[in-house]
């Protein structure tokens, strides 16, 4: 079973809520779900959609064909009907004027029934759910259980209303809808999936940061990063986290650097434009050796670009941002579950090496929802790195020269110590200097961190046979679509594997060299136009990829798209 629902309409019509309901019903019933959000940069009107894919096998990407369209506006039909499969169904609310009713398979009185049965137009969501499930012959009993669980917290009346509305539409549809969907689920029992936690990439990062004892977050709102900041803000009271919306991104990162200098684990969240403003302070964090975690939820640029859409085109910018040279770490989680652990690692690595650590997400990663197993935080390990809290006495030197380049940290307020930090070249005691020898020593000190940093980077994951002829080279959020493409290609008899990177900078090359040296055709699959990761690989290893598959329209990749691109390139 592999069904995709596309719920479309104007911004503000509640399409997200219908999508959430559908997702929750299927998760409750034991299925894997993967939901993408496609929306325009506007508050009301326009055309947005939520697309929910449901399967009885694990899924990690959307598909580009649709089984059921739930349309709350004319555009929702027009924009998607070409992607509807042959046995697909379009459910259309009958109150909305539409001149091409022929195209709709089922005109459902969603709004009418919501008002009449539920007494509230907002119950249109439950109505849409009822109609959709009926089209699939999905047992209503399962839906009822799910609705009861979902609305349970809001009280019995809300539960009853929603169940009644869903049932009314369910029954009405069973009676009136003459068409047939490719799936008939009437004998459905609960599915095999026990993963009951619905997470977006942003939410997973927020939870990881909270488990990692984040104590300060400052940010200026910027899509698609904002939901992470909002999540931490919403728990700031319960968990005693300092969270502040600032006047701009420069202030945000400078506050985070100040808070971290003073001993609090700190983070900023932004997108490419905001990161551009933060670049000067990125260099300050490096020079002053103040740990900070920076999250960039990428969107298509340059400039304002496509504010609510997806791209992976800030990689090289972030790898080389700021004047001067210094060590930094960049991590790009592939999905929400990995993101949780990446956030914890980011804080630990930042503290351990006293450097900026950057997490690269993108709109697709940030907003997509999937169900994952319960996350157990009890084993979270915090590594604050080298600390000199008690033992060094009054001759404490913030930038003490050491073999590994890492000087023990102390914090203002530590008795008997004066913690002197500077963005200028400085002596071991932190006071500024222009002495050439000290400059050399300090540059060497910062570069001496590199071997241990490299050692802390995880090697890439290899999927498929190490000796395969073709390698799909991927990083970050495109993992899911590429991994699904890998299966399709393998099933078609191709000799192919996938080499995937979460830890992208600095680039660890042993496994990379080993796998790529055996591959006859290396294909970079990236959500950008210039295959930035492939360029990084070439810089680090001299290895060139043979083919490039690039998507830069701001919409996420699908497996079928990748497979078609590979066919077009003529690789066999």
């Amino acid at each position, binding site marked *: 079973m592999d069904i995709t629902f596309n719920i479309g309409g104007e911004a503000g019509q509640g399409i997200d809520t219908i999508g959430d309901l559908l997702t*929750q019903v299927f998760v409750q019933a034991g299925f894997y779900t993967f939901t993408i959000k496609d929306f325009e940069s506007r508050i009301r009107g326009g055309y947005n959609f939520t697309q929910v894919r449901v399967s009885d096998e694990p899924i990690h990407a959307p598909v580009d064909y649709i089984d059921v369209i739930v349309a709350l506006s004319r555009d929702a039909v027009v924009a998607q009907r070409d992607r509807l499969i042959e046995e697909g169904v379009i459910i259309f609310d009958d109150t909305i004027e539409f001149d091409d009713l022929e195209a709709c398979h089922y005109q459902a009185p969603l709004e009418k029934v919501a008002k009449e049965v539920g007494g509230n137009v907002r119950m249109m969501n439950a109505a849409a759910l009822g109609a959709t499930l009926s089209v699939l012959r999905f047992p209503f009993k399962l839906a009822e259980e799910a609705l009861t*669980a*979902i609305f349970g917290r809001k009280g019995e009346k809300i539960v009853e209303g929603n169940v009644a509305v869903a049932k009314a539409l369910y029954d009405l549809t069973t009676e009136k809808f003459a068409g047939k969907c490719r799936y008939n689920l009437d004998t459905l029992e609960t599915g095999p999936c026990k993963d*009951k*936690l619905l997470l977006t990439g942003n939410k997973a990062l927020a*939870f990881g940061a909270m*488990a990692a*004892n984040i*104590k*300060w977050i400052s940010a200026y709102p910027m899509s698609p990063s904002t939901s992470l900041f909002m999540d931490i803000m919403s*728990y*700031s009271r319960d*968990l*005693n*986290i*300092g*969270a*502040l919306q*600032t006047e701009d991104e*420069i*202030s*945000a990162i*400078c*506050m*985070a*650097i*100040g*808070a*971290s*200098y*003073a*001993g*609090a684990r*700190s983070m900023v969240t932004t997108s490419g434009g905001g990161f551009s403003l933060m670049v*000067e*302070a990125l260099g*300050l964090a490096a020079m002053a050796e103040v740990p900070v975690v920076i999250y960039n939820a990428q969107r298509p640029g340059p400039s304002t670009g496509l504010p609510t859409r997806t791209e992976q085109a800030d990689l090289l910018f972030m790898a080389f941002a700021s004047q001067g040279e210094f060590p930094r770490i960049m991590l790009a989680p592939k999905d929400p579950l990995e993101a949780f652990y990446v956030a914890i690692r980011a804080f630990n690595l930042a503290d351990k090496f006293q450097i900026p650590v950057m997490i690269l997400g993108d709109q697709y990663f940030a907003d997509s929802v999937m*169900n994952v197993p*319960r*996350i*157990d*935080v*009890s084993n*979270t390990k915090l590594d604050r790195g080298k600390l000199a809290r008690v033992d060094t006495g009054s001759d404490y030197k913030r930038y003490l020269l050491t073999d590994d380049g890492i000087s023990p940290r102390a*914090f*203002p*307020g*530590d*008795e008997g110590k*004066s*913690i*002197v*930090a*500077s*963005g*200028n070249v400085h002596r071991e*005691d*932190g*006071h*500024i200097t222009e002495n050439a020898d000290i400059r050399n020593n300090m540059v060497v000190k910062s570069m001496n961190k590199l071997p241990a940093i490299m050692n802390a980077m995880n090697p890439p994951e290899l999927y498929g046979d190490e000796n395969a002829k073709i390698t799909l080279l991927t990083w970050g959020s495109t993992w899911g679509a590429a991994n699904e493409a890998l299966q399709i290609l393998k099933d078609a008899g191709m000799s192919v594997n996938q080499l995937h990177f979460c830890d992208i900078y600095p680039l660890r090359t042993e496994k990379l060299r080993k796998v790529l040296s055996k591959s006859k055709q290396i294909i970079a699959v990236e959500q950008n136009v210039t295959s930035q990761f492939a360029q990084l690989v070439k810089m680090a290893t001299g290895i060139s990829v043979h083919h490039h598959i690039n998507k830069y329209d701001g919409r996420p990749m699908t497996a079928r798209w990748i497979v078609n691109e590979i066919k077009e390139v003529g690789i066999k």
Partner: protein
Amino acid sequence: MTTVDQLEGPQKVTWCTGCGNYGILAALKKAVLQLDIPVHNLVISSGIGCSGKAPHYIGGLNSFHNLHGRPIPVATGIHMANKDLNVIVHTGDGDCLGEGLGHFVHAARRNVNIAVFIHNNGVMGLTKGQFSPAAPRGYVSNTSPPPPGAPMDPANPVALAIAAGATYVARGFSGDQKVLVKLMVEAVKHRGFAVVDILQPCVTWNRQLTWKFYNEHTYSLQDNRHDTSNRLSALEKALVNEGKIPIGVFYRIDAPDLVANMFLPEAVPLKDHTTSLKDVQQIIDDLMI
């Protein structure tokens, strides 16, 4: 007890002979002695320019010499991480009123509990004499259009601070130690955003705003019965731009500061607080379907 020896500068001062910054540094040391706050609880955040070097000329304290225009947000972060610290910003007129003006206004609006000392000499000293945002209209420099000089009025830090919501706003003069020390002590003790605009001559570049000029053109607000609780009369005094320049406290009120409305731990500084993993687990488990 903090001692004079403790505060001895770790580095040789690089300011020009006769620079107004010497008076500000001397006043700062006297203020630190008078405040008698343990030096490990004092932090200086400074920007870039001649003023930014202040932390290298006073010993014993914590300091973070950071970026041009950004010492206020850095100081805000330090304060939030550890509200037991007393955080002092040393900034110049180019730093605070040019590059960092937005931060200055928003920090005042937040009433964040830090003290900001503006080394105000009307000129970009370290980059060799360009007109600063605080230079008078017509000020001639190597980057102001000849012949009219600076083609605009100066930024007015005192008026800006009062208008933006600062709760302690004063002006001092590097040549009047007694008053300046008093203002610095009050600013550090004040709970909320405290600003001391400190007039200082740049003896190398500024031929207009000299020791002589300030000695002849300043007068004490406090000797002239100014009501420091009245925002409008404070603003009126701040907007005087002809004749004599008022020195002293313009405006002082009590108002909730930034931390008063944030959820920082009460028992320990934020930096020493550890989130309970059980609480995080509960948040996650509550989302399970």
